C-alpha cells in the first residue's frame, strides 16, 4: 500500500532511544522529585524496569502479525468497525501529542530564551521541519536520526562530565526514605511518558523493519538506553540542586547546564545545550506525527500518506495553540487525563488485544494462516 520502505534494526534502535528520551529529559526529573523527593532517581530506575515490561508486551503483540502496523492490527483483531474506532482514537491521540510537543517546544523557548517571540511562530518553525521529515519518509528520517544521535550523545556526555564535579551526595541522602510503594507510584508518570507512549512506535515496528530477529532486542535495548539517560539526568538534577529546586523548576535539566563551570572557561554554554532538547523533542514530535498521518492513511485505505502531511501539520499547529490555555492546565492535564488517555490506548488496549487474541485464536486460526 504505502511505499515499501525498510529501516534496519540499528536505525530503529536509534529512533527508540530518541523517542524514549524525548520530552522526559525535560519534565521527568521535576515530576519525579515532586513525589519521590531525593529518591527520584530510584523512581526512574523502577520506571525503566516497568517500562521494559510494557515494551515487552508491545513486542509480543506486534509479532503476531509482523507485517501489520498497529492500526491494521486493531482492525484485524477487533473487526472492521470497532477496530477503526480504536484506530481513530489512536490517531487522535498521536496528533494531540504531536501538537502537545509543539507546545512544549514553544513553551520551553518562551520560558528560557525568547520570551517575546510569539508561540505560533515557534510552533510553525518546528512543524515545518516535522512535516518535512515525515514527507521525506521514514528512511530519510531514520538516517537523520542516526547522525543526530551522535550529536546528542556527545553533548550529553559533555553535560554529564562537566556537571559531575558539582554533585553533592548529601543531596540524595537519606537513600530510600520514601519506601517502595511511594517510589513506584511516583514513577508512573515517567512510565507513561517514556514507555507507554512508545505504542506509537508500533506503527513502524515491526512492519517497516528488515531483519526481524535483532529488532526485538533493539526495542528493549533502546528503551533501556533511553531510560538510563533519564536516570542519569534525574540523578544529576537531584544531587546538584537538591530536592526543592529540582521539584520547583519547570525544566530542571536545563538549569543543570547553567551550572556547568569548568575552570571559569567552559561555562555559560546552556544555549548550546538547548540543542539537546531540540533534537530529542523533534524526533518524538515527528514520530507522533508520522504515526498519526500513517494511521489516518491506513484507516481510510489511502495509497499514499504524503498528501495528508501538510494539512495535518496545519491542524497540529492550530491545536498546539489551543489545547493548553496555560502552563498549569498543561501540568494538571498531563498528570490526570493525559495519563488515562495514554494508559488506555497504550496499556489497556494492548491487554484487551491479548485477551481477544487468545479467545479468537482457535476460531480464527485457519483464517490467520491463510492471511499470512
Amino acid at each position, binding site marked *: 500500500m504505502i511505499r515499501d520502505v525498510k529501516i534496519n534494526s540499528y536505525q530503529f534502535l536509534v529512533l527508540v532511544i530518541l523517542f524514549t528520551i524525548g520530552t522526559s529529559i525535560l519534565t521527568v526529573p521535576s515530576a519525579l522529585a515532586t513525589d519521590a523527593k531525593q529518591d527520584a532517581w530510584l523512581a526512574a530506575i523502577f520506571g525503566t524496569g516497568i517500562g521494559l515490561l510494557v515494551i515487552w508486551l508491545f513486542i509480543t503483540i506486534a509479532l503476531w502479525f509482523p507485517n501489520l502496523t498497529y492500526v491494521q492490527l486493531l482492525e484485524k483483531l477487533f473487526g472492521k468497525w470497532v477496530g477503526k474506532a480504536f484506530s481513530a482514537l489512536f490517531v487522535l491521540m498521536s496528533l494531540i501529542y504531536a501538537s502537545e510537543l509543539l507546545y512544549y517546544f514553544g513553551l520551553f523557548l518562551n520560558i528560557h530564551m*525568547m520570551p517575546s517571540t510569539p508561540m505560533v511562530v515557534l510552533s510553525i518553525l518546528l512543524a515545518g521541519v516535522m512535516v*518535512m521529515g515525515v514527507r521525506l519518509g521514514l528512511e*530519510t528520517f531514520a538516517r537523520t536520526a542516526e547522525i543526530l544521535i551522535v550529536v546528542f550523545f556527545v553533548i550529553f556526555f559533555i553535560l554529564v562530565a562537566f556537571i559531575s564535579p558539582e554533585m553533592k551526595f548529601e543531596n540524595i541522602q537519606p537513600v530510600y526514605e520514601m519506601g517502595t510503594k511511594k517510589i513506584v507510584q511516583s514513577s508512573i508518570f515517567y512510565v507513561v511518558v517514556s514507555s507507554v507512549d512508545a505504542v506509537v512506535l508500533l506503527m513502524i515496528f515491526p512492519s517497516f523493519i528488515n531483519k526481524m530477529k535483532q529488532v526485538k532486542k533493539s526495542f528493549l535495548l533502546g528503551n533501556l538506553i533511553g531510560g538510563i539517560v533519564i536516570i542519569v539526568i534525574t540523578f544529576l538534577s537531584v544531587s546538584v540542586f537538591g530536592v526543592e529546586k529540582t521539584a520547583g523548576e519547570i525544566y530542571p535539566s536545563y538549569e543543570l547546564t547553567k551550572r556547568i563551570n569548568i575552570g571559569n572557561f567552559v561555562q555559560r554554554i546552556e*544555549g548550546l545545550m538547548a*540543542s539537546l532538547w531540540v533534537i530529542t523533542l523533534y524526533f518524538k514530535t515527528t514520530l507522533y506525527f508520522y504515526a498519526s498521518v500513517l494511521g489516518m492513511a491506513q484507516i481510510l485505505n489511502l495509497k499514499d500518506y504524503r498528501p495528508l502531511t501538510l494539512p495535518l501539520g496545519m491542524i497540529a499547529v492550530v491545536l498546539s495553540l489551543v489545547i493548553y490555555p496555560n502552563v498549569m492546565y498543561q501540568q494538571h492535564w498531563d498528570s490526570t487525563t493525559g495519563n488515562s488517555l495514554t494508559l488506555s490506548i497504550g496499556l489497556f488496549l494492548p491487554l484487551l488485544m491479548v485477551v481477544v487474541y487468545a479467545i479468537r485464536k482457535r476460531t480464527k486460526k485457519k483464517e490467520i494462516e491463510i492471511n499470512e
Partner: protein
Amino acid sequence: MSFFRKKSNSKIHSNSISTSQMMKTSSTNELKTNLQENIQIIKDSLGKSSDIIIREIRIGKEETIKAGIIYTDGLTDTDSLQNFILETLMLDIKGTELQKKVSPEQNLISVLKDFAMTVGEIKELTNFEELFSGLLSGDTILLIDGYAQGLIISNRQWVERGVTESTAQMVVRGPREGFSENLRVNTALVRRKIKDPNLWMESKVIGKRTKTNVSMMYINGIVNDKTVKEVRLRLDKIDIDGILESGNIEELIQDAPLSPFPTVFNTERPDIVAAALLEGRIAILVDGTPFVLIVPALFTQFFQSSEDYYQRADIASLIRLLRFFAFTIALLAPAFFIAITTFHHVMLPPALLISLAAQREGVPFPAFVEAIIMEVTFEILREAGVRMPRNIGSAMSIVGAFVIGTAAVEAGIISAAMVIVVSITAISSFVSPTYDLAISVRMLRFGFMALAASFGLVGITIGLIALLLHLCSLRSFGVPYMSPVAPFNLPDQEDTFIRLPRWKMFTRPSLINQQNIVRQQDSASAKPEPPKNKEYEGV
C-alpha cells in the same frame, strides 16, 4: 551523427535547420559514384567554410583515376597528409598498375586501403554521415571517381595543451600530472595507472551539434553492474545540441538537480580517477575538458584529498577531521556569531561581552545586516579576484583588505569582531579540497544567518535538522549520499572521517560495490614489520 538515421524524427528535424538544408541538397544519404557530384554536395553542405580544403588529384599509372582529398585545415596533421597520403598516391605508386590489382573481391578502394596507405587507422565509408563526422573531427577523406565509397584516413592532430600540473586540486605530495583537453590523452593517463584488462571503456557521442566524445570508464568485476546500467541509461537519455564541458553532463545526469549539494564528483587528477575506479566507481570522461566526472559521489568524498592516501595515515586523519571542522565553521560561523551577540548574550564570558559591546558602540547596523554587508563584500572581492587579469590582482587585494579590514572598522561602520568572523569563515571555506562543496556552503551560509537572526541558536539547530534531512534524502546513483555515516556502516569507517593505515584497509566501500569487496586479504601479515632475523641488526 544519429540525426541522419532518425530522419523521421520530426522533433529533431524541425529543430535543426542546417540538417534539413543538407537533406535537400543530398537527395540521398549514400555517396554518389560521381566524384564531382560528391564534392559539390560536400561544398554545399558545409557552406563555403574556408577551412575545408578540397584537393582533386589524379592517380594511377596513366593518371586516369580521378581522386579527391578532403580535409579540415587545422584539425589534420598536414605533415602526415603530405608524407603518407599525397606522396604515396601521387609519387610512390605511380608505377603500379592499380587497375590490375582490382579483382571481383577487391575494388579499387580496398586495394588502395590495403596496398597504398601508410597510415595506421583507416576505414571505408559509404555515406555522408560518416564522411562529415570524420571530416569535421580532423580525418582526411579520400574519394575516388567512379565509386560510391571512400576512405577515412585518420591523421587527426590539432593544437592542444600538453599534460600539465593540475591547478584546481593541488597537492604537496603525489603525482603532478593533470588531465588535458584531449579525451584520448586522458584515457591513456588512466590506463597507464591501471593495467588491468578489466578496465573497460564505453564510448558515446553526445550532443547533436558538438558531437562530443564521452567515455565511461570502469573496472569490470569491481563496479556495480546496476550502477553501470543506470549511468548508461542516463547518458543515453541526454538529448541536447551541445556538450562543451563535463559540467553540462553533470547537470543532466545528477540525482538531485535542485539540491545545492553536488551529487557528482569531478576531478582534474588521474590518480583520483584511478583510485575511484578501484573503489568501484565509474568515471565519465568528456572530450574537450580536463575535468572528469566520478559517480556515485558521496558527501564525505568531498572532504577527501588524494594526498590523504599518500601521507602518513595519522596526519591524514587529523587533517581530514580538520576539514570537517573548517566546513562547519564556513557554514555556521557568521550565523553563530549573530545568534550569540543578538540572542544569547548570556553565553559570552563577561569580559568578552563588555569588550564586544564597546566595539559595537556607534555601529549603526544590526549584527545581521553588518554580517550580510561583510559577506557580500567578500563574495564580490572573491569573484573579482578570480576573473580579474592576474596583474591587477595584487592591487585589488590590497584595496579589499584595506577597505574591509581597516577603513570600515576605523569609520565605525563595522565592528572589528565581525571582520574577524568573516575572515575566519572565508579562510575556512577554502580548506575544502574540492571547490564544489565550498560553493554550496557559500549559499547555505546566508540561510543560516537569516535563521540565526530571527531565532538564534534554536533557528540554527532547526536549520541543521532540515539540512540533514535534505542530505539524508539525497542519493547519488542509488547510493545514499550520507553513507557510510547514515546508514551507518562500520567497515567503511576505515576511510571516512579518518583514514586507517593501508595495512588496515581491507575492503572497498561496501555500498558502492557489492561484488569483489576485498581490497587486500585481511591478515596480520599486511602490517609491515621489521625483519626478525638477526642478520640485519647493527647494519
